[in-house]
């Protein structure tokens, strides 16, 4: 006897099948929703005269909102609680802890005008790289052929933020496997100082329970609440040293995980539609 109850013996394979089906549906969404209608929408946005960046950012947001709406339908045991305060953020740099590949998708879905830093190798991927370039995202490494892009993006950032855009970044760089806050890159702080923009520190929880690092399948069968809350707001102040700002962000991210408020179920929402 391995100590497994007969009930678990039956339900575990069912749960795995359900997880596999949800995973398949999610990948199906990414592929088929891109082929139709999003490929046409991106194509239209590219052909229209005027600035492409805001259009591509908005379309990216729609694309990932669609993904989270689908998840809400096919994985209803996962609830999404997002502070109203977070949804109202504009003209700011956002820093957030990083738990899962879903984190950047959630940010993209949440903000219509968004920029972020993307691994440079993704810019070389056909179609995906084209979308990233047209949306005005940053390559993580401004070397070689990406120098020009990096210069243009950094120089245009102040104007972009002033116009209501947000620049979000996960300063740990990679996903935390144990929930602890890793060492922080200072890029976001430097951008905020350079552009005299406020920094909003957000704390995210629960995305790793839905899609864990190193796993292929979504854990759709389990009950979970994904929360995104604002835990600190730092006004632009050139006098604060980089080290002090980094320390403050680290502390906010660390205590954000320990001083959490109980989630209010009445606030449960799928992005954009309460």
């Amino acid at each position, binding site marked *: 006897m391995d100590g497994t109850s007969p009930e678990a013996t039956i339900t575990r394979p069912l749960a795995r099948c359900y997880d596999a089906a949800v995973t398949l549906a999610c990948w199906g969404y990414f592929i088929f929703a891109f082929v139709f209608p999003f490929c046409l929408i991106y194509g239209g946005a590219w052909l229209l005269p005027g600035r492409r960046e805001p259009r591509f950012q908005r379309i990216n947001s729609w694309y990932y909102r669609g993904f989270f709406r689908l998840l809400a339908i096919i994985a209803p045991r996962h609830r999404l609680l997002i502070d109203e305060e977070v949804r109202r953020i504009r003209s700011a740099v956002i820093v957030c802890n990083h738990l899962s590949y879903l984190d950047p998708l959630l940010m993209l879905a949440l903000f219509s005008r968004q920029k972020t830093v993307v691994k440079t190798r993704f810019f070389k991927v056909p179609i995906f790289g084209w979308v990233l370039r047209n949306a005005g995202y940053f390559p993580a*490494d*401004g*070397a070689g052929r990406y*120098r*020009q892009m*990096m*210069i243009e993006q*950094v*120089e245009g950032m102040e104007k972009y933020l002033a116009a209501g855009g947000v620049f979000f970044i996960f300063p740990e760089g990679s996903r935390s496997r144990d929930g602890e806050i890793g060492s922080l890159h*200072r*890029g976001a702080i*430097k*951008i905020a100082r*350079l552009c005299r923009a406020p920094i909003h520190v957000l704390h995210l929880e629960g995305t790793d329970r839905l899609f864990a690092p190193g796993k292929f399948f979504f854990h759709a069968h389990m009950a979970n609440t994904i929360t995104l809350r604002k835990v600190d707001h730092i006004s632009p102040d050139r006098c604060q*040293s*980089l*080290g002090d700002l980094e320390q403050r962000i680290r502390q906010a991210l660390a205590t954000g995980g320990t001083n959490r408020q109980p989630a209010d179920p009445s606030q449960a929402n799928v992005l954009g539609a309460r």
Partner: protein
Amino acid sequence: MSRDELLTKILAILEDDFEFEHPGLDDNLRDEHGFDSIDAIELLGKIELMLGFSLSRAEKEKAMSIRTINDILDYIEKIQASRQQ
């Protein structure tokens, strides 16, 4: 501007704005002081103010490969020389 004058101004910028502590002229700025692409672009803005003219795209791209303070001084001297021709 002489190289010594440039050095004084660049050191002041690096210490005041980028919070460097006693940087050596041949220190690798990226490895030893965490100077990245964003810093390089911010520094270019300050160099433009210092020189009193705007840098071209090509000149800015060249600056992205700067690694040491001596590189910065060489870079500015070359820019100054090209503008004087």
